[in-house]
């Protein structure tokens, strides 16, 4: 590119950045909104990935005085800490959430555990507060079944003796496998999700100025001064790719340094392939900027820009696994999610940040993002010429 054109490009980029710097609402949407989402959602979902089953306030109602019941009680307390004293009005304590759950050891529990047969009637009751998370409920029930089974096994094999720390739980080892040192946490999931969401929000700022330029005749004026359309589009794409890069740095910094200060877990970048991370982020930026430019060229009014862009983003986010993780979706919705460019960005980042993947593993997502971004840029160029200035 001749130095003359570079000087024009630099001046137009400077204009774009000045306009953005003075657009407080735009800055808020680009930087503050995703940061708030990351903090809020990470704190809100902190327990989703590490259920606090072992630290919930609970009570025991022991109505069986037998040895087997005492054994169950001991095992439970050992794993879950000391229970709260059983309140007189335990029903109200559960309803209000003051107690998260209550375990009732019904009369006949010891007899059922001592009997040389599997139980056929319920002697252990788990009562939880009404709003408890479904996964946590299931985990507590499974633990209770496991504890009872463990107790029954201990009673059976008492004569054979038991080494300290032996339990049925020792038989099972469970972990989320990441292949490296990366820990799957709410932060690890939410930083990429809301970063991708924020990156696609460049559409609002970009289309707002674009429409203002077109309606005021400023684009026409630039054109009549001999500025080529490709240079005008490049002067918009380049600064917003920079904005995307800044967003990425800020969001990662929030995950690494700010979240621990707020009592959340820190984003871990240990074992992450930096080059792969940069490539996925760049590809996401290309897709976000391409789509934003195409939309900016397609809409005609500020009202359209203020609604179409954000609505499209929210839809892409909802469908693409930003707001609801894709793995909790039914199979049909998971397939629908694969059509959202936000999902490609998110999956690419999850591959790198969560699964310890490198360039090769992220390549399918990167390819989709880049092809989509370039197609959108071509559409933007076509619309720009067709619709005039």
């Amino acid at each position, binding site marked *: 590119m001749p130095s003359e054109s570079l*000087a*024009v490009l630099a*001046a137009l980029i400077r204009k774009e950045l000045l306009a953005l710097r003075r657009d407080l609402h735009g800055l808020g949407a680009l930087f503050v909104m995703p940061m708030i989402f990351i903090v809020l959602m990470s704190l809100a979902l902190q327990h989703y990935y590490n259920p606090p089953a072992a630290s919930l306030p609970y009570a025991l109602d022991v109505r069986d005085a037998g040895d087997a019941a005492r054994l169950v009680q001991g095992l439970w307390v050992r794993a879950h800490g000391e229970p709260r004293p059983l309140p007189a009005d335990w029903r109200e304590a559960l309803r209000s959430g003051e107690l998260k759950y209550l375990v009732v050891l019904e009369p006949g529990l010891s007899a059922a555990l001592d009997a040389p047969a599997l139980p056929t009637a319920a002697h252990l009751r788990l009562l939880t507060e009404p709003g408890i998370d479904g996964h946590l409920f299931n985990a507590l029930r499974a633990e209770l079944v496991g504890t009872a089974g463990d107790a029954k096994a201990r009673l059976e094999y008492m004569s054979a003796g038991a080494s300290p720390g032996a339990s049925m739980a020792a038989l099972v080892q469970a972990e989320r496998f990441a292949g490296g040192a990366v820990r799957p946490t709410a932060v690890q999931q939410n930083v990429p999700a809301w970063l991708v969401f924020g990156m696609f929000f460049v559409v609002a700022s970009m289309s707002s100025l674009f429409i203002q330029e077109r309606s*005021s005749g400023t684009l*026409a*004026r630039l054109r*009549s*001064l001999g*500025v080529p359309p490709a240079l005008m589009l490049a002067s918009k794409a380049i600064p917003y790719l920079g904005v995307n890069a800044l967003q990425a740095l800020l969001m990662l910094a929030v995950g690494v340094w700010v979240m621990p200060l707020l009592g959340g877990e820190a984003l871990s970048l240990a074992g992450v392939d930096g080059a792969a991370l940069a490539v996925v982020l760049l590809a996401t930026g290309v897709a976000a900027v391409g789509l934003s430019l195409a939309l900016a060229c397609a809409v005609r009014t500020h009202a359209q820009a203020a609604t179409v862009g954000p609505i499209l983003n929210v839809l892409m986010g909802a469908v693409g696994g930003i707001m609801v993780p894709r793995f909790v979706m039914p199979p049909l919705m998971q397939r629908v999610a694969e059509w959202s460019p936000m999902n490609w960005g998110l999956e690419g980042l999850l591959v790198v940040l969560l699964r310890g993947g490198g360039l090769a593993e992220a390549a399918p997502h990167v390819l989709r993002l880049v092809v989509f971004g370039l197609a959108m840029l071509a559409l933007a160029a076509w619309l720009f010429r067709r619709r005039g*200035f």
Partner: protein
Amino acid sequence: MLVLDRLGFRYPAATRRSLAGVSLDAQRGRVLGLLGPNGAGKTTLISILAGLLPVQEGRVEVDGVPLAALRAEAPTRIAVAPQDYAFYPMLTVAENLACFAAAARLTGARRAARVDACLATAQLQAFADVRAERLSGGLKRRLNLAIALLAEPQLVLFDEPTVGVDPQSRAFVLDAIRALADGGMAVIYASHYMEEIEAIADRVAILDQGRLLREGPLAELLSEGGRVLRLRAPGLHADTLARFGRVARSGEEWSVQLDDAARPAEVLAALDAAGVRPQHIDFGRQNLEQLFMALTHRSLRDAE
């Protein structure tokens, strides 16, 4: 300098042509006033000259060079000051000028000198660091003007450059544009304000519905109503005037296209005899409004 020869243009899907067979020329040191109601084709004509629309029919040349070739080679020789505030409201006056100066490929010391010169021409020095959105309507017009002059164009097209400004700013803008022509620039001034065209133009072209109705030196056009007597006379009957020529009436305003034998003094005598006391009489010269009306049988304001 600028020659338009049978220029025609039709927008896609439009039923009629926005410009049809328009032939004009603009000279250095002269202001060509382009008069016509909204929809007459003024903005289309300016858009073609600005390179925003193609030359579909006819020929446009600047000093013998086809417009397309000129725009490819030296696009800044023709500048446009559009009707809208075509600049960045969130940028300061100086930032706007710097941005457009760079877009016009001005560099280094020349860029700085041109920005200073245009600030001075538009008397905007005191507002250099003020954001454009905070300027008054008049100052915004001046900024629009200053940006148009950055690249020292040889032809400047002004499209309704005084819309929405106070009388003082209007006078400033008109004086500044007149000074540009006096300095050797070719100026095309499109407006639907007849008074402005009368005040500033050397030649006038009247457009209506894409057609050029009349073009010529201002003084010549204004003197075309040589045998028309116009008067305002309450209580006057058409019969009193009919024997002197063809009579037309608009409210209390009357006009008589005098027959060859009729003399104005005879008309006045007849009015006196009929006991009619005229409030206003005009003979031998018409204004652009009257010329437009004579050409289209419509008022310029009605046509907007």
